[in-house]
């Protein structure tokens, strides 16, 4: 049972940061970005490029990496944010200025997703790659097998969620973000710079995606479809948690991760996603707005 929980929490930690970004973009820009998965992949590949330049991922204690990777992670977070900003400037912003409908924005995000994935294949090829090639032996913690990298993924993700909570609740920028997400026109009338809020949304959303990408890359591997493969569980987590709530996204991710692990262990591995989606349906039947969502 402990193993099942551990598997579920580790799986959730790979999607939490991506879902948080997805949810922020949804609330502030008012469309679900289907490119969020591929932003995760670009982040992982930017870090991979930097590690390749440094020549080594280094090594600290029991982890399979060291300072070069930590440096790469920080650079990738910033660069991935800037990349998203560039995409917003050149594509989404043009659509917003023309008052494009939500469906146009969604289709545009599909296009961005394909573009990013193919760009990665073009530059880095199809084959899976690794920050550090050596296979890391798992530790036994309280009867559960877990690798040091997985443990780190859970810890870093938790820290980022706490940091995000403090940011959204304590800083002026965070508060303006919440204001814009609740009522953009009212926020604008009150003197909030909406464009600035949008800029920071992309920077934070894609920055968190980069962190998710590096953590997943460390634990599993870096490959061009790594982010796309996360897209479905991410959307499920966002919807079940309540699309209007960033905290709901975190809860949703945990619920999906644990539900999938339980299915694999106790029901049948091949029904992993089917059962996870059944859970989503049941939750939505009971609470159509999601666990922490507010009624529209």
């Amino acid at each position: 049972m402990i193993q099942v929980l551990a598997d579920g929490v580790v799986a959730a930690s790979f999607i939490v940061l991506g879902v948080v970004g997805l949810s922020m973009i949804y609330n502030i820009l008012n469309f679900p970005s289907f490119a969020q998965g591929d932003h995760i992949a670009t982040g992982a590949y930017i870090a991979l490029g930097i590690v390749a330049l440094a020549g080594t991922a280094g090594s600290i204690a029991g982890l399979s990496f060291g300072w070069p990777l930590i440096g790469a992670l920080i650079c990738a977070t910033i660069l991935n944010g800037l990349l998203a900003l560039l995409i917003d400037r050149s594509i989404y912003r043009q659509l917003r200025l023309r008052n494009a409908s939500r469906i146009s924005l969604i289709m545009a995000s599909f296009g961005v997703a394909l573009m990013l994935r193919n760009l990665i294949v073009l530059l880095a090829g199809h084959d899976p790659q690794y920050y550090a090639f050596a296979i890391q032996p798992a530790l036994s913690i309280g009867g559960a097998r877990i690798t040091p990298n997985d443990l780190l993924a859970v810890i870093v993700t938790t820290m980022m969620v706490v940091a995000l909570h403090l940011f959204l609740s304590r800083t002026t920028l965070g508060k303006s973000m919440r204001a814009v997400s609740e009522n953009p026109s009212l926020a604008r009338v009150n003197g909030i710079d909406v464009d600035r809020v949008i800029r920071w949304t992309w920077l934070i959303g894609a920055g968190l995606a980069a962190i998710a990408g590096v953590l997943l890359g460390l634990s599993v591997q870096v490959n061009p479809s790594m982010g796309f493969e996360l897209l479905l569980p991410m959307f499920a987590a966002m919807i079940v948690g309540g699309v209007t709530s960033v905290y709901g996204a975190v809860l949703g991710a945990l619920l999906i991760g644990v539900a999938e692990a339980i299915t694999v262990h106790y029901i049948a591995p091949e029904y992993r996603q089917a059962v996870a989606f059944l859970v989503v349906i049941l939750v939505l039947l009971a609470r159509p707005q999601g666990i922490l969502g507010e009624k529209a």
Partner: protein
Amino acid sequence: MTIFKTLLLAGVAGVLFAGPAAACPAKIGAVLSMTGSYATFGPPISNAAALAVEQLNAAGWKVGDCSKLEYIVRDDQTQPSVGVDAARRLVDLDAVGAIVGPITSGVTGPLLTSVTVDKGVLVIVSASSSPTFTEMARQGKLKGLFYRVLPSDALQAVAAAKIAWDAGYRKIAVFNLNNDWGNNLGKQFAVTFKAMGGEITGTVTYNAEQPSYRAEVNKALEAKPEAVYIAATPIDGSKILRDWISLGGTQKFIFPLGMNDAKVVEQIGDQYLKDAWFVTPGAPQPNSRSVFYENYEKRYNLDPGKGPGPGRDSGYDAAALIGLAMMAAKDYKDGKAIAAAIGKVTDPAGTPIMATVDDYRKAVQLLGDGKTIRYVGATGPMTYDQYGDVSTPFVGWQLENKIFVQKKNVSAQDVADIKSKTGT
């Protein structure tokens, strides 16, 4: 005036009802995955088939007055609906009597059931190793119009079970991809291994392209298997194996055809694969593999050793068999006649014909005289049963200094014996 009208009508009717042109040159069709997810296999298999047709022409191929054989390939995009459409065009527009069949069983199934069997067209598949077709043939659904070049997966899994048993493993977990290929291999391996007296600790069926397989691997590890049979594709396989090793699972692996890929070794590290067995169909002796490779490299301007790649020789053999069978049948339009003549070109008592222009010249002579031959293809001589299944020996490979070395042979007879003894 009336006569004129009648003539005109007759002319129109003639155009409408003349049906497809079936005149010389004789045509061999092919439905292959030139694009889509099997696009790495399609082009070399097709090149191999085209080479067989060129060589037959060079050797003076002829049936009656027709002395020109043509090869037409159509892309199935690795999609069943596209494959069916491609086959329909080959049959209706190009009037082919025989087709080099698809690589993936997913395309072959609908192609057989909705086009070729009804139209009486022979299909020799280039890969499509699903046991489903054996079952369909057993139920009489294929009317003797289906042949393979590669053995069915069911036989491969039997050979894998034997290799596992002979290696001394008694408690094995099965870990397979959730599709026709993976499920068939996994099921057949488990059934055979249990019938031999071994224990299957559990079967984990995984879905392709998941972000991580940690939970699946932990599930399979629960029962502490001694060894594991993993039927995965190389990319999913690399994730699964790295997790498996990291979580402390046994390193006694048994893999099917497909995992014997240098890329897999590169992704995992050969130090973890020391005990691994890679089970693949083997070419029976004698065979034309090396001469085929040489000719292929020469024809397509490749460096020596850069040939078509493992498994691609099946396309060559499928096309060569069809071309030879047409001569034996003295017919290139009627699929049923061509299919019936397969026995005349794979006759164990016939004159051996290797895959060279010189030997094909002999074949033209012999078949013209009504004699039988035994085609010894790039994959070896074909021995067919009544369901169009080819029986081949299997080979167990192990890694030595990152190179696959042939370590164990399981003969076609061994496989047949196990199948009858275990009743599987």
